[in-house]
């Protein structure tokens, strides 16, 4: 049975695509056949973050319209054996995604033996975002420790539990909170919401905390999902999150500042 997971947030720019790329890569590295679908019609970017932008021939909308087969449109990732990317279309027709069309594609992926289907939602609460979350079994709500992002996350949680297919059937979409761009130094100074505060406000189970880390920009610059950067804190935090998704119990890391000793402070290198 394929598990459909939507990566959503309401607010833009919080790290949905970065997280979709990292987590789908992580699942595939763990041996699970995974597809990641870009639902941001007209503003496709997952292809760029995953470095397959020059291999896009057909897209999601082509498949829905019957202009290409799913097999023709899926792009096999060059780094992970079990990972396939379905790029968004660059059409300006916002209604190109239909419920029937999306359902057909998801069913075909499931029949093809895909275990995980990650739906990378566009920002906002318009049609595209609705299509990305409608068929979800689970949702990863990506938030930054910042007021507008937390408020929008709560709004999205409300929509998930009222407008999704699961909600229509009287069931619940399983929710996970992924807090990104976390800065423990600023939290310690009282300048930034702590992870516990966000958990308390949203009342959602924490999947992971991704520390603010230079490696994230470096990764998107190069088109290598940050989870492949095993040395980086963000990469390790994403790996932990994937392990938790697969049922392992892993302690949260990088929640407190790593206090530099006096010696390191005095001879701080400009890294």
């Amino acid at each position: 049975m394929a598990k459909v997971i939507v990566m959503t947030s309401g607010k833009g720019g919080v790290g949905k695509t970065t997280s979709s790329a990292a987590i789908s890569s992580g699942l595939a590295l763990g041996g699970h056949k995974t597809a990641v679908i870009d639902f941001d019609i007209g503003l496709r970017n997952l292809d760029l973050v995953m470095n397959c932008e020059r291999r896009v021939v057909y897209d999601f909308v082509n498949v829905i319209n019957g202009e290409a087969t799913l097999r023709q449109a899926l792009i096999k990732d060059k780094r992970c054996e079990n990972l396939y990317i379905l790029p968004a279309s660059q059409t300006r027709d916002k209604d190109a995604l239909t419920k029937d069309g999306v359902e057909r594609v998801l069913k075909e992926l499931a029949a093809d033996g895909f275990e995980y289907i990650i739906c990378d939602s566009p920002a906002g609460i318009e049609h595209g975002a609705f299509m990305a979350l409608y068929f979800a079994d689970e949702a990863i709500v990506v938030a930054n420790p910042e007021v507008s992002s937390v408020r929008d996350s709560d709004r999205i949680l409300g929509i998930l539990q009222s407008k999704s297919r699961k909600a229509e059937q009287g069931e619940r979409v399983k929710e996970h909170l992924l807090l990104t761009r976390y800065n423990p130094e600023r939290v310690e100074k009282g300048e930034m919401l702590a992870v516990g505060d966000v958990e308390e406000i949203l009342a959602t189970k924490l999947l992971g905390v991704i520390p603010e880390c230079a490696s994230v920009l470096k990764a998107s610059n190069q088109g290598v999902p940050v989870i492949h950067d095993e040395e980086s804190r963000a990469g390790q935090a994403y790996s932990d999150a994937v392990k938790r998704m697969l049922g392992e119990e892993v302690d949260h890391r990088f929640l407190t500042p790593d206090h530099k000793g006096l010696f390191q402070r005095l001879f701080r290198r400009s890294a």
Partner: protein
Amino acid sequence: MSFLDYFSHNKSQAASIAKERLQIIVAHERSKRDQPEYLEALQKDIMAVVRKYVDIDTDSIEVQLERNGDYAVLELNVMLPD
């Protein structure tokens, strides 16, 4: 005051302000979210009726639906001018 407090006396209040503001707005929005869609229309209709008799502002009427287990209470609050 301990020795260490001397160094942390300038801890910012920003995060706690953010948390408090978020808790209020999120609770407010959740209470609205759980209400049936007809409530807004009902509020408008009730207001039109009250206005036939008393001159009141838009915000001096409040309609709320509260659910308690297997029954619900429709609360109507009209503030009449002095």
